């Protein structure tokens, strides 16, 4: 079943695992929700609504200290459970448990960080790929991008292979001429902006990654120019 931008997806592929380092925080979007995604120094990944409960500041501008994320505005520290642990303006105060960020379900699987806007029991479907190739932005809608990938993604990316593109709820998958399997996971950012995360089943040489990357750039040019022509 193809997903459309109108249907809320249960699990959204939001980041390539290898690209989010311990101590890093980034901004992303899940079903139009502004999300702060961060990795603690312990390795644990958290996805929270991107606003500090204190004064609404985007937490993605904050900084990671150990296993806590601190808001850049007043330095309020939040632990992995979302609860506020430290308010610098009042160093002796134990913050009440009511001060808490809004969390999203978040798991790492097959080289991707997946976020769900709903607390769901089922994990995303398993994929045969887990090695990061690259992420990139396409300035078209998710539906337009998905349709275009199905239509001629294979001719741009398969490098002479004859494999067809297979559509899944996460995006598409295909096999290159040398039998390398690729996953292209698709994430809606806004009605005009879509992220695409590309992974492979085996670790690729730098040369091979560059080749795939160039093909992706050519594909992007074609898809974006077609969108403008409409």
């Amino acid at each position, binding site marked *: 079943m193809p997903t459309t931008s109108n249907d809320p997806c249960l699990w959204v592929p939001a980041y390539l695992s290898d690209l989010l380092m311990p101590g890093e925080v980034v901004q992303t979007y899940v079903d139009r929700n502004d999300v702060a995604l961060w990795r603690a120094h312990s390795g644990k990944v958290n996805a929270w609504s991107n606003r500090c409960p204190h004064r*609404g500041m985007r937490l993605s501008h904050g900084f990671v200290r150990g296993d806590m994320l601190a808001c*850049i505005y007043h330095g309020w520290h939040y632990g992995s459970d979302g609860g506020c642990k430290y308010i*610098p303006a009042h*160093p002796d105060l134990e913050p009440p448990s009511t001060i808490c960020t809004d969390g999203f379900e978040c798991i790492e699987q097959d080289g991707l960080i997946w976020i769900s806007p709903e607390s769901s029991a089922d994990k995303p479907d398993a994929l045969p790929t887990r090695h990061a190739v690259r992420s990139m932005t396409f300035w078209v809608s998710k539906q337009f991008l998905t349709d275009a990938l199905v239509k001629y993604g294979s001719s741009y990316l398969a490098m002479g292979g004859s494999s067809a593109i297979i559509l899944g709820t996460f995006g598409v998958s295909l096999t290159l001429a040398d039998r390398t399997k690729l996953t292209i996971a698709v994430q809606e950012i806004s009605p005009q902006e879509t992220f695409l995360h590309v992974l492979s089943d085996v670790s690729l040489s730098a040369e091979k990654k560059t080749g795939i990357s160039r093909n992706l750039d050519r594909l992007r040019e074609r898809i974006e120019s077609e969108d403008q022509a409409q």
Partner: protein
Amino acid sequence: MTGSTIVDEWYPVGMVSGLEPETATSTVLMGEELSLMKETDSSITVRRGTEERPALVRFGHVWTSLGSPDHPLFSIPEADNAERRLVDCGCVRVKCSPLRAVENFLDIAHFPFIHTGILGVEDHPEVKKYDVEVDEKLNEIWAKKVEFYQPQAAASAQGGIITKYMYRVATPTVSILYKTCPVRKGEWDIITLFVQPVAEDVCDVWPWMALYDDDTPLTDLIHFQQMIFLQDRSILENQIPRLLPLDPKLEIPTRADLTSIAYRRWLKRRHYTYGAQTVAA
């Protein structure tokens, strides 16, 4: 005084020193296009289309109103002291609610994180208890006995000092800060934040100062304030929602936010809703 509505308030719309003689300067106040003009006799007029609006020239700026103010402009008696240096700091356009800009100005707890090494350091983040009251006669908010450790409190400061602050909210978009003068004991430097609401979520911020500082070059004074306000802008353009929530359940304050709590209550009580979010989105 408590009956003043949003349109009947006085608002800053430009710097007097920025006006060229007999040349119209256009600006926007709460979505309305205005034209400022320095006439041949040096008087200043403000027009909306062909209609003349009230115009005052005070504290280096032009003040006007879209309605009929039933009260004079607030006063800053210290500004008339000839020994003080009056400094126009220009304008910073910020894509945020004018009320968020004022609230940020009233906040000291962010100094160690946003103005690091200048107005605060992370080793001294504590905000001690201070007093906040509403002056019912003037309908102004006053925060007193505010103290904070600052490594470089002003352009003229030599090293770190415990700076004393008093904050005054004179109108919903005007705040005046009285702060320890680094070079003249027992005196207060004055730094104001005059906010021009352009739209509910866009404002022009006009900082202005009345200081005891004869030595620091003018460009250094202006650069210092511009640096501070540009640091603040990185916050103000990233707060969600962009409007200031007046529902106390939407954002959680702490003791350090007493001035902000008083400010939000005061806005709510006088039904000042321009730039405010009154119901949860």
